[in-house]
């Protein structure tokens, strides 16, 4: 049986993209898989009794070494902020290419803690900072110093000792450009080095908390139980900075979604599902429920989504146990049809992710295709005709070209870059100043403008002639020729409409990162947890690939 890839006009709606969950394709999972055979080492740990100082961790294989350099600093309570406007953090980190010399560590000591106003070099690959979850960190230190393990219930409510507020890479603030390292096989998957940084930061948080407890009470202190460490991840606060990324990298977005869609298609095409595979699917499904019941959020929006996910999952599990026989042909296809008919987006995408668990043979080859050489698709094929471009728009953006942008509600917001933090923001164009400096992120509106211009242009005219008179539409002409080749490259929604939920854009990206427990704090920023349940570095050589579903939480 041949199954078609799912329709981009449905899948690329923001509400659907905002329902995606982590899967075997997620970057933090593929990072662990790639680096499991590397030698992990704590190279330096020079912290004072309060946990302030420098530490270095590394992954090494053959002649290649990646080193995380950590700088932990004292921070006054009134200086601690997760907002992007903060200028000081509990700890700052950089991933260095190779083994850092003393000179490197000294040089970076003056730059890394400054983050956006510091300068890095081509020898540094990623940059980040993080703040303690003070209540939890202090609780853990206090208990460990008394020889006790911390309260697991309290830990599970938060899920991490530190949360990062930004992870930078690819040439930001002088970091190495991607072209310098892109041919390294171990980082073919997207965001590998960002994932490595976060993973090693997680280990630093455990070592730091043990160190402080030990110094507080050297005779009585115990170490944090490794099983508890495993159940903790690294938190992350993410705001709008992430949203434009998926608009500005259309072929990369396509390759992520295309990998997911191809995986689903191939799984639905399996004629006979082996018993061991259906059992693994069912096991992961049942175990995963713990991740939902321990999903804490104050967001009414997310609480409703979680409740509806739980209801749908219970309904689905009943169906699976009472009315479903995995020995029938194309069982996963039948499950998919059931989901389409009976479950919401959140549950459908949740099950799609779990369907991938038994199928390394399908998933692994897709992972390396999730990067993109975007430069290759930058040039506009100006020898094509107006008629061809018009056909592309009608074929690829059918719902977009139906939107009436003269209506206020469809044209309500504008994206801009704030002058003080150089970060993307969203505002109401009818209430705020600055819409004349709008960023080119209103793709739907500009595609509609392009369509209207093409409609009154001569069909046989070539694009070079069209562009000579319509330079303002050049950015969307480029995108239209990209979507012709990359069907999942475009969000099929209005990113400036009144009803836009920007966190859907964040969640899409974070789900591919492998984040769990999305916790929206408004419609514009959210908190998540990464690597919760993941093996510790010493356990990497022989770890359970389905760890996501085995978390204590």
């Amino acid at each position, binding site marked *: 049986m041949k199954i078609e890839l799912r329709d981009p006009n449905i899948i690329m709606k923001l509400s659907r993209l905002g329902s995606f969950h982590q899967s075997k394709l997620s970057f933090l999972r593929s990072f662990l898989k790639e680096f499991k055979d590397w030698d992990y080492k704590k190279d330096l740990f020079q912290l004072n009794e309060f946990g302030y100082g420098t530490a270095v961790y590394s992954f090494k294989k053959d002649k290649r070494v990646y080193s995380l350099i950590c700088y932990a600093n004292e921070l006054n309570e009134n200086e601690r902020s997760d907002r992007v406007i903060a200028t000081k953090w509990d700890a700052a980190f950089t991933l260095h290419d190779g083994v850092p010399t003393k000179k490197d560590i000294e040089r970076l000591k003056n730059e890394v803690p400054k983050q956006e106003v510091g300068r890095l*070099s*081509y020898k540094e690959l990623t940059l980040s900072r993080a703040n303690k979850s003070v209540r939890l960190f202090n609780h853990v230190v206090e208990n460990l110093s008394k020889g006790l393990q911390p309260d697991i219930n309290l830990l599970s409510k938060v899920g991490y000792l530190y949360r990062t507020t930004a992870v930078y890479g*690819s*040439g*930001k*603030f*002088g*970091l*190495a*450009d*991607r*072209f310098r390292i892109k041919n390294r096989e171990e980082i073919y998957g997207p965001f590998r080095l960002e994932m490595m940084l976060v993973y090693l930061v997680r280990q630093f948080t455990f070592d730091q908390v043990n160190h402080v407890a030990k110094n507080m009470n050297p005779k009585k202190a115990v170490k944090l139980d490794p099983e508890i460490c495993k159940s903790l991840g690294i938190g992350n606060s993410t705001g709008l900075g992430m949203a434009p990324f998926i608009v500005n990298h259309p072929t990369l977005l396509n390759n992520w979604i295309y990998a997911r869609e191809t995986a689903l298609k191939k799984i639905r095409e399996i004629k006979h599902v082996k018993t061991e595979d259906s059992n693994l699917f069912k096991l992961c499904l049942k175990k995963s429920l713990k991740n939902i019941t321990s999903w804490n959020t104050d967001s009414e929006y997310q609480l409703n989504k979680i409740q509806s996910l739980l209801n749908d999952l219970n309904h689905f599990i009943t169906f699976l146990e009472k009315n479903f026989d995995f020995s029938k042909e194309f069982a996963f296809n039948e499950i998919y049809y059931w989901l389409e008919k009976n479950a919401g987006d959140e549950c459908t995408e949740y099950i799609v992710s779990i369907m991938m668990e038994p199928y390394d043979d399908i998933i692994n080859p897709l992972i390396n295709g999730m990067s993109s050489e975007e*430069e290759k698709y*930058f*040039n*506009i094929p*100006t*020898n094509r005709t107006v008629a061809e471009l018009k056909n592309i728009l009608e074929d690829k953006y059918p719902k977009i070209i139906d939107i009436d942008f003269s209506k206020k509600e469809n044209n309500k917001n504008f994206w801009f*870059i704030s002058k003080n933090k150089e970060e993307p923001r969203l505002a109401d164009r009818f209430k705020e100043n600055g819409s004349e400096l709008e960023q*080119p992120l209103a793709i739907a509106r500009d595609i509609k403008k392009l369509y209207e211009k093409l409609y009154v242009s001569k069909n046989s005219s070539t*694009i*070079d002639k069209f*562009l*000579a*008179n319509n*330079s*303002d*539409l*050049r*950015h*969307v*002409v*480029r995108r239209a020729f990209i979507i012709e080749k990359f069907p999942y490259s475009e969000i099929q929604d209005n990113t400036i409409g009144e009803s836009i939920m920007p966190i859907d854009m964040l969640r899409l990206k974070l789900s591919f990162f492998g984040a769990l427990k999305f916790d929206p704090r408004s419609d514009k920023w959210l908190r998540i947890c990464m690597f919760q349940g993941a093996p510790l570095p010493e356990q990497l050589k022989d770890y359970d690939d389905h760890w996501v579903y085995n978390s204590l939480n």
Partner: protein
Amino acid sequence: MKSLSEIETVSKRSSKAAGFSWGVAEEVGKNIRMLEMFGLSGIKNLNYYFRIRDKKKFEKLNIISKENVTNKLDFCPIVSGLSFLDQVRSLESLNEIKFKRIAYPLLFLPFISRASEIIGKRLQLELDNKVFLLNYNISIFSNSLNDGIIESGKDVLIKFIDNKDSFEENEWRELYKLSENTFVEENDSLKQGGAGAGLTDND
């Protein structure tokens, strides 16, 4: 040192701020990144061009012809370059194209380099006494790499270089003959058993 990613972003944003559309600004960002990667003064020239752009007017050359002459104003290097890039497929048959007075011609150069990749031919850009050989947007050879700011190109000539060998046939034959010394002379036994297939190709 600034990364190429920073160079591209700042060039793109400043181009938009200087009055170009976002789509054109994206092109300029890529171009300046390329110039700087090849060791040419992209940022310097862009900065100086934008400095005077407020005070001085420039001619927008939207349609390229064999001879492009401006009487009063210098050509804008960005609009001229973009037009060349977009129209290069139809310009190829002209073999040579002349321009009089292009402002800050180093900003024009990356468009020509990218055009070389599009048509799969080397292009030679002669800029007064400077020559740039643009090799399919992979490399740029020049007799003048570190000139910094070039305010104007009075006479600019673009030559389309035909794809042909840079050597004589007898030179090729001589080298080929030498390369044959790495081959093994086949006897009957090797002819029978050395290849996977039989003695005829179509069996």
